[in-house]
């Protein structure tokens, strides 16, 4: 479960980094997170409080990265500056454009 969480965070960090390939591994965040997970693996206690705290903090950070990304995507989609055809705008609120069988008056 901790491995899945770590993978999740690293995936988010990778999608954030602008450069190609392995550059995100040089970032301070990547180094810190991998170091923290490695440090907390070796513990003889089954219920380690520090481990639980780290897990909660890591899960919070993953939630932050994921939700910021999704919020930004939704903002871009619905609040970004982009021209939408009338039909699509109507569909956003669940309406459809009316059909006029004879065509609109001014159309040839």
């Amino acid at each position, binding site marked *: 479960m901790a491995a899945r969480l770590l993978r999740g965070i690293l995936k988010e960090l990778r999608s954030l980094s602008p450069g190609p390939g392995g550059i995100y591994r040089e970032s301070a965040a990547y180094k810190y997170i991998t170091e923290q997970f490695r440090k907390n693996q070796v*513990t003889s206690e089954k219920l380690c409080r520090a481990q*639980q705290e780290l897990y909660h903090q890591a899960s919070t950070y993953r939630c932050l990265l994921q939700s910021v990304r999704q919020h930004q995507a939704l903002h871009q989609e619905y609040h970004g500056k982009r021209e939408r055809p009338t039909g699509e705008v109507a569909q956003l609120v669940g309406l459809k454009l009316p059909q006029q069988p004879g065509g609109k008056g001014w159309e040839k």
Partner: protein
Amino acid sequence: MLARFWARAPAVLRPGLGCQVMGRMTEWRRRYPATERKKFYQDVSISQGEGGAFEINLDRKKLKTPQGKLFTVPSEVLAIAVATEWESQRDTLQFFTMHLTTLCNTALDNPTQRTKEQLIRAALKYLDTDTVCYRVEEPPGLVELQRNEWDPVIEWIENRYNVVIGSSTSILGPNIPKESKETFEQHLSSYNSWALVGLEYIIHQLKSVVLSLNLIDRNLNVEKAVLLSRLEEQYQIECWGNVEWAHDYDLHELRSRTAAGTLFVHLCSESSTVKHKLLQD
């Protein structure tokens, strides 16, 4: 690089010579607090200044708060997280996604000039109208959902802090005894002012002191706390359907703000000490 930026600005807005580069930037920001500006740096790095506080460097310039103060944070991990926020920006700076930076700016500038006591009072004001204490009487599905989901979190807080909160269906809300409020006041004053800024922020987002304390004390994770805060909305979504551009948008915004606040509180109030356990051979 900035020359092109200033060339487009009308002459009356260009500040005179002798200002520092960051001074011009914050001057511009004060007059035009735009939500989107072009990214003006390539590299982000962290450095430790005098007094042990950590600073953020954008290329060679030091980051400053909106009021012009030097941006410093007490914790290195927080500095790394803030630096990651700035690093992840693309062509334009989207300030509405940089929640940790915003929280740090609020803590540093204190724009509303509030003392610690005022912050605590503002935070605890939400207790009288706490979301999880306000119950509906119908429809029965929602009544049961509220009982099943919200009762445990109230009970957890009542046991942990030895207080009485309860819930109510009346429009006046729950009747919270003075001793409970005093207990919470005492507990909150054990946090430092930075952590309190974060805590008040979370309480304001979730509209609930009970949920926020559950979250800070790690009984809930962020997704669950947000779900419980939006319980009725979630119930209605399941009945009537989900509207992506409203419901999902709000959900992700609430999650990101709550997660940022939680991280902020934890990073500002912890003091990490490394204890090496001796390996028994």
